[in-house]
């Protein structure tokens, strides 16, 4: 099992989905100046091949729907890193009528990064933390989602139009 964990933690493929303004610090992290490929993290086009979902900032209801879809399409084990203030308690958009305030009501989150926006160094710091957590077997938020699916679905249904969104997977 140790080998699996080791391999997993060193070839995290990240889903290419820029959900909010945090996406602006992703290109510098991906490219030559900070070069996250040093840690085996590369962007991946489809959810089915990726291990890691970065929620880079606030989520509008419309995006959250796509994020939940994408998250459910990802193969387990899967990890979520939430960027910035907005994913914790709404951030700057705490009174906006169109953004969700607490991401972990809708999908489980492994690591939060502070900042608005987090610097590339902070993002890499979170990657390393996640890597260590996977090595130790602590990054189990995805299991939480499987175990408490009903609760998550309930919360999701609260913000989505129930007629257009089926509570089943």
């Amino acid at each position, binding site marked *: 099992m140790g080998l699996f964990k080791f391999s997993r933690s060193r070839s995290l493929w990240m889903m290419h989905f820029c959900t909010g*303004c945090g996406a602006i610090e992703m290109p*510098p992290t991906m*490219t030559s100046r900070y070069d996250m490929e040093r840690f085996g993290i590369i962007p991946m*086009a489809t959810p089915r091949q990726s291990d890691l979902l970065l929620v880079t900032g606030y989520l509008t209801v*419309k995006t959250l729907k*796509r994020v939940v879809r994408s998250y459910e399409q990802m193969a387990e084990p899967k990890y979520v890193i939430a960027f910035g203030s907005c994913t914790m308690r709404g951030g*700057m958009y705490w009174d906006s009528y*169109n*953004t969700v305030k607490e991401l972990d009501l809708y999908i489980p989150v492994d690591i939060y990064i502070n900042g608005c926006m987090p*610097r590339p160094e902070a993002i890499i710091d979170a990657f390393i933390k996640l890597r260590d957590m996977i090595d130790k077997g602590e990054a189990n938020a995805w299991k939480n989602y499987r175990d408490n699916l009903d609760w998550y679905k309930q919360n999701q249904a609260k913000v989505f139009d129930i007629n257009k969104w089926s509570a089943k997977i």
Partner: protein
Amino acid sequence: MRYFEYFVGPQHVGVTGNMSYHLWADGDEIKKMITSVGYLHRGFEKLMEYREWVKNVPMVPRICVPEPDVNEVLYAMGVEELSGLVPSERAQYIRVLVLEMARLSAFLFYFAGAAGALGLYTIPQWTIGDRDYILDRFEELTGGRAYHIYTTPGGVRRDLPDGFKSRVQETMNYLKKRLIDYDRLMFENAIIVKRTKGIGIIEKDYAMNMGVTGPNLRASGIKADVRKDDHYLVYDKLDFDVPVVGDGDIFSRIMQRRLEFDESIKIIEQVLEMMPDGGFIEKLPNPIEWKVPAGDVYVKLESSKGEFGYYIVSNGEEKPYRIHVRGPSYTHGIQVAQEKIVGMRIADVAPFLFSLDVCPPDIER
């Protein structure tokens, strides 16, 4: 007739930011496209009505993520025009410096996107890596990398740090050196030229009528630049050209930015030389409970994407009554893209959309 229906975005490498396109194709030919926006709609205009004038200063940069400074400057300009506050000359020069640096960084981002869409992956590695040096300068000046929150009604929040001018000049010299590499790799690259010439043409008249602005308009052959036509800050004292490429295809839109890149460096060098001494801020009478006289004003400026405008209405209270933000991508990203993409081939969709430099957050706000 049944078409092949497919989606680009929101979770896709072929879009700029978080938006999606719904396409119908007949074989390899696009028959119809619908732009779907709203993934980033935060209701800024509403939120700003709930906040005092100064409290909106940290809000506005979030409207356009790759080039936040235009929003700060526009908001400040609008509030200043309503209230009769006049920022010092030095503050105006600093604002021009910030705006042009932001333009450079947005152009570098644009090159990365446009080249990436064409499969030339070396360019993103270079330009975004080099953009970081501009961000370093921003960090020194403003204290933030992405969001600078630097311009505020009355001036700017801090003065230039020691030795800043020479470091900006160094960065400019470095970029000038790098441009030679970019030219060889991208703008003179026969493959890029072949892939982009004569494709996605936006005609002159169409561009004028459809509210296309900025580099996209100039790439279609109309010499119009807010910096010259409706000059703001100290642009009328600076010497720069407005290049016009004029073919209106993807290549001319990319080339247009390449030529404007040179002009921006020229402006920055002039600003560094001409910047006078003096105060950097005219402090407001009260940071929180300050009231702006009633009135309405439309201010606009030239961003790297086109005409950015703020329509600000005040009813004489501590909070704005209404702010309408006119983002340049609004016209480019929705109607122009939808109409002009028809007849194009699937492989050209991404280069075309990237060439328009659509920035979804400024459409949706």
